[in-house]
């Protein structure tokens, strides 16, 4: 892991609202691995011994080449997939077999596709998590309205998803992931399906929401600019099997993270560095002959 020797990783970790790293991590992954059954009958290692501690109010961005198991890693955090090996712990409580269903109200998950139910209006889509968690009672209408206001769609409650644009649908999806007030928001390439302009606009929107809600956020992305704009900590995974190749604190100050971030000197330096690392990992994956599929 020669990347870890780079001076960047030795920089002090300083999330906005400093001093947070003194409290223990909320979510911990301890040598988590995931095997899939491959089509030839063998086993495919998608994620290899990833250890990670997610701290309070932290925004983590996970970068990696396509087919690096980064989505699989996130899905294990969100209880969608069970790890084959390794343990996970949530607020000190250790789970051998992945996060159990009754703990999942601590999480909100945003998918790459908006994943809205087309037969439900915007409001009813937001009601879905509340129904599943049996908390769709008194006050849920207020909570839903609050979330829609947060993502700027307060006037679109009675509209069906197909009447909205792609960017608006993804904002509804974001509101839905937060409506049950989870501690941790997991986002699997949430802006990946959007066009470039919408994508840039929504990434700033995401920054605003992250600052407003101060939730723990873990985002998988293939976009370095997004990672540098949003992430307090940035991880880079290797090509399959995905393991952590590089980890760095993002020391671009919070006040510099705005529309003008591309002018920032530190941003330029980090961008070049991360670009090299991700590129090297993609190359390594390609030369190793691990092709085929997106593995996510």
């Amino acid at each position, binding site marked *: 892991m020669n990347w870890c020797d780079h001076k960047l990783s030795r920089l002090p970790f300083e999330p906005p609202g400093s001093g947070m790293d003194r409290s223990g991590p909320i979510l911990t992954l301890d040598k988590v691995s995931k095997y899939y059954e491959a089509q030839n009958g063998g086993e495919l290692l998608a994620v290899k011994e990833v250890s990670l501690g997610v701290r309070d109010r932290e925004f983590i961005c996970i970068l990696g080449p396509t087919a690096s198991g980064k989505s699989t890693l996130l899905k294990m955090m969100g209880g969608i997939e069970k790890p084959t090996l390794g343990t996970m712990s949530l607020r000190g409580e250790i789970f051998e077999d992945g996060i159990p*269903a009754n703990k*999942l*109200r601590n999480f909100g*998950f945003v*998918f790459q596709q908006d994943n809205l*139910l*087309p037969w439900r209006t915007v409001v009813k889509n937001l009601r879905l998590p509340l129904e599943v968690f049996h908390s769709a009672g008194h006050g849920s209408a207020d909570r839903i309205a609050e979330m829609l206001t947060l993502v700027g769609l307060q006037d679109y409650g009675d509209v069906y998803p197909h009447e909205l644009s792609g960017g608006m649908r993804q*904002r509804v999806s974001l509101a839905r992931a937060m409506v049950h007030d989870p501690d941790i928001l997991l986002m699997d390439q949430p802006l990946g399906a959007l*066009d470039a302009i919408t994508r840039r606009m*929504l990434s700033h929107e995401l920054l605003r929401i992250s600052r407003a809600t101060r939730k723990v956020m873990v985002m998988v992305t293939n976009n370095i600019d997004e990672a540098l704009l949003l992430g307090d900590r940035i991880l880079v995974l290797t090509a399959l099997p995905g393991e952590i190749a590089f980890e760095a604190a993002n020391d671009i100050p919070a006040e510099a993270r705005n529309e003008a971030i591309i002018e920032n000197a530190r941003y330029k330096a980090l961008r070049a560095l991360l670009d090299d690392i991700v590129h090297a990992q993609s190359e390594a994956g390609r030369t190793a002959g691990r092709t085929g599929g997106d593995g996510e």
Partner: protein
Amino acid sequence: MTTTTARQTPPVKGKPLKRKTEPICYIAPIILFVAVVAAWALFVSASGISRTILPSPFAIFREMSKNFVRDILPHLLFTLRVILTGYAVAVPLGILIAAVCSQYRIIIKATTPLIILLVVTPMITMVPLFMLWMGFDSKVRVIVVILQATPIICLNTLTGFTTTEGAKLELMRAMGATRLQTFVKLIFPNALPQVFTGLKLGCIFSTIAAMSADLAAGKEGLGYRIQQYSSLIMTEMAYGTILIVALIGIVLFQIVVMIERRVILWVR
């Protein structure tokens, strides 16, 4: 994908965008119907074809309006009752079987060929056997309808239940939804378009099955009437009754289409 503009004018609240049907869509079938009748009448009078082969549409109308109330109506009501009773049983039964089957992959695999077998078996071939076992009771006809309509409803519904998008299932799993919650909130509503396809086909199959049962045996029903009119060379009445049967199918089909339009408000 369209780009987001921050403040678009919101649509009128609570009113899903309605697709307006052009008036031509209503007029076109009527024009076609009139044209077919005209061509038919013209053909009959010009060719001098025997009325036992093809009577003129006006003769059919004349004979029907003369005999409808006395000779057709009781049989119409009888057949209609058979169709509706059978259909009313077949709909929940078909959906229920599909729901149970869809729970396990192995059951889907095991039952699908059997369901297809039942779909393609013309129940008319079975009617003499049923008569043998159960007599000429009108219950036999209802059973024939149930047996013909249930599999097609079940097959379509099952297709709907088993084609849920993987990402949507992950959404439910991410919330720790139970099996029942996943079925009620995701799988069933997601399958509704296919369920309705099954319901529409079920109407047609029910009507066909009721005719099959009538034709095979018994002294009641529109099918029996058609057979009787043919043997008495009352071709006008035979044709007229066939048209009535077709009308039953069309009306039932359209009723389901109307319900479908009220239920499925989203565009796929």
